């Protein structure tokens, strides 16, 4: 009875569904929905905690920071003997004036993104003191709970390049490993490339959804986000391997079976198991998302989206692409998408042994 479940038949529909998510995501990426954090742009980020019942106006926080920085810079200009760091800071501020954008977060927390605060001068202390003076008694500001991250352009540029290199490295590394693992199967690179397609699918889904989140909720992507992406890449391939592994096994077992039915056969055998393995990971990630605290919530969300997408793509995209490729349907993608579904309903053709 399960024999009647023909997943491969609906391959174009499955791929269409993926596009339904990826295309809007891409649109929002183009619209600038991805908001890189200071990890990539450089600058400073303040986590300012107030008494939850007496949270000040964001504009007020921005103004306090801006005013006191202007004051500090002004004092510095008047100073007779400046050291190197101070001269550097003045030059930086001349090039681009100090900016602060405050964004209320969870209760009692206001996240402020400002221009880079110099750690090498007294600036940081001056600004924190100003905050304390203004908000301590009235709003319950406490210096010991202040979180402040400053990233100079040296580091942010490096993080950006390393991120790209890391993603490329991960892809290439896994492609090579797959090609090795599937070396006994016909055309190992094809398996590798299909796995890479599924991986790109997952990366695009995660990026796209975060572009949408960034566009509407101003969520940022940081170095941890890249970490999540890299982990998702590993996962995606991991899931795909389970399916491909079964195809590999069935191919060795039944060399004469038509490829299309072979893949379908393998999918039916592995689908429950693939869902189960992902489910356990999704359970733990959901627990982390719900109870794990705000600091890593976006990181966990990216992982969660990636794992769900990875499961989907390994079942419904990677193997489908294998079939499409095997049947030489690439050429038809553009012209005859609509009739594609009917074509594949034909009885499977025997695979010519090459």
């Amino acid at each position: 009875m399960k024999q009647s479940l023909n997943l491969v038949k609906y391959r174009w529909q499955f791929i269409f569904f993926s596009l339904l998510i990826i295309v809007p995501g891409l649109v929002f990426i183009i619209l600038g929905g991805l908001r890189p954090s200071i990890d990539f742009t450089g600058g400073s980020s303040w986590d300012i905690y107030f008494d939850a019942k007496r949270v000040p106006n964001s504009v007020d926080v921005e103004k306090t920071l801006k005013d006191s920085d202007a004051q500090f810079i002004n004092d510095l200009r008047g100073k007779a003997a400046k050291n190197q760091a101070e001269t550097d800071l003045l030059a930086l501020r001349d090039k681009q004036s100090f900016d602060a954008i405050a964004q209320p977060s969870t209760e009692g927390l206001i996240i402020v993104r400002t221009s880079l605060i110099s750690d090498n001068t007294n600036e940081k202390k001056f600004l924190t003191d100003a905050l304390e003076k203004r908000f301590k008694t009235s709003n319950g500001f406490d210096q010991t709970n202040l979180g402040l991250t400053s990233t100079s352009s040296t580091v942010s540029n490096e993080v950006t390049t390393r991120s790209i290199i890391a993603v490329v490295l991960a892809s290439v590394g896994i492609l090579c490993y797959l090609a090795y693992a599937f070396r006994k199967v016909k055309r190992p690179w094809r398996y590798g490339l299909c796995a890479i397609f599924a991986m790109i699918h997952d990366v695009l889904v995660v990026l796209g959804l975060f572009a949408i989140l960034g566009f509407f909720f101003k969520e940022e992507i940081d170095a941890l986000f890249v970490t999540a992406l890299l982990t998702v890449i590993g996962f995606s391939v991991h899931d795909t391997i389970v399916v491909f592994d079964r195809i590999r096994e069935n191919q060795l077992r039944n060399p004469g079976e038509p490829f299309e039915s072979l893949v379908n056969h393998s999918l039916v055998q592995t689908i429950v198991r693939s869902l189960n393995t992902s489910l356990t990971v999704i359970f733990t990630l959901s627990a982390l998302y719900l109870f794990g605290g705000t600091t890593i919530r976006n990181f966990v969300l990216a992982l969660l989206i990636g794992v769900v997408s990875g499961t989907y793509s390994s079942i419904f995209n990677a193997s489908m692409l294998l079939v499409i490729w095997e049947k030489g349907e690439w050429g038809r993608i553009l012209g005859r998408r609509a009739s594609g579904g009917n074509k594949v309903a034909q009885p499977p053709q025997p695979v010519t042994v090459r």
Partner: protein
Amino acid sequence: MLSLLGIGLIVALSAWICFGGDRTESILGTKLDFRVKQGLDLQGGYQILLQARSQNVTKERMEVARNIIEKRVNGLGTNEPNITIQGDNRISVELPGVTDEDQVKKAIGSTGRLEFIDAGTESLNTDDLVQTTYCINGSLFDKKAGQCGAGVTSSAAASSAATNPNAQANAAGTPGATATAGSAATPAATPVAGAATTPGASTVATDTVKTGKLSSTGQPYQTVITGDQLDPAKIDVGFSDVGGAQKVLFGVKSDAAGTFSTFTSSNLGKQMAIVLDGRVISAARINGVISNQGEISSDRWGTPAGKAEVQSIVLQLKYGSLPVELNVINSRKIGATLGSDSVNQSITAGIVGLSIVATFMILYFRLPGVLAVVALLVYSIITFAVFKWFGVVLTLAGIAGFILSIGMAVDANVLIFARMKEEMRLGRPIERAVEEGFHNAWPSIRDSNISTLITCLILFWFGDFTGTSTIKGFALTLAIGVLCSMFSAIVVTHTFLRVMFLVMGGQTRLTSGGWWFGMNRTRRTTEEVGQA
């Protein structure tokens, strides 16, 4: 059975490591540290990435700078500071628990304080923390800078100074931590030299909490000259004529040579010590009058360890202040409360996650599910023991990696059980089904875990350049988790199942009782037709 015993031993060992609380143990003379090391984001603190301002710095200079920073940080009394060199020209400084900006400045400020002190007849030990008469302002950024800092001429002067409230206040910092402002850059602080000639403003360190040692007279040690009066060009490693042992050569600048010779001639046979930031780096007996050229030698310095010591002293004399000018290029301050909240939230998330997974496994796979859950607990204990044993620093992302790996650890079990179920449906006896299940699932488990390990490797490399331990922590815990999960699935679950079929009888075919293995009888007409 033997492997069951082995597992029992490993679990017992792990449980002993895990549940004994935070402690250190010594076994067979080796000291083992079983304390959970919390990362900065879990306990709050500072994290700073420093980069040398100049492009061409030598490895040697960076190493010296790192050592000096480490010494200063240790003076701050923070728990488990971590100072490492990154790449060619960077130093990463992690100061857990520190939330005070000033303390950080003291640790990473650009210069240190090097002094030659009069130790009288005492022989001081290396690393002794001492109070000296020379005191400079605490920080470049301290507004009260420049008030203190001059030598004391005699014990009498020192005691009279002790009554001066102003001087006492200035010296209140620990000598080990006050060393930042460049002595060379602070002309007000220079009139130190003349031990017997320059009666200057006197200073007595009176801080009662973190004080260094006082001399035998109950006064701070008399500073003879400071590091900026040494001639860096003349500081070198020398070779003594006898036995080829190494010695330290140093030169004194001409303006201080007079002072130095006066001091050494009147103190022949007595002790002199070199102090960096209040800590003794070397102590020696004065054997001759030194004006502008001196040497330090020791019987101990003929050995390889001695050579290293000579090298180290030479470097510290040369670069008493930081040998490179460092810039902060990345900094992170994490509030203390946030950290402790995070720990509790992570623990909740871990327990909830583990419970859901356990419930799922038992409901879906029934008997093997129960075994898998036991295996999972074993896995958790072993993994946590590994963290403790190797001192893995736990960060928030690291804990996430650990919890994530719980989900992945079951993963392998799911693969094996699914394969096993297939075999049983084909009517194989339990024993065969178990062995076949493992055999067939192994390639998938191996391949998928290797792909995760590749990712971890890349993540580790990536994390190295972001200047934070967060990403590395995640990669490390995930990798350890994956390795332990392979062990748990392949060895632990396997053994449990073997024990199970020993009890049930391995040749049993499941004509009935399939429920225990999560098999639904209506599903028995399976897709495996044609495979047998």
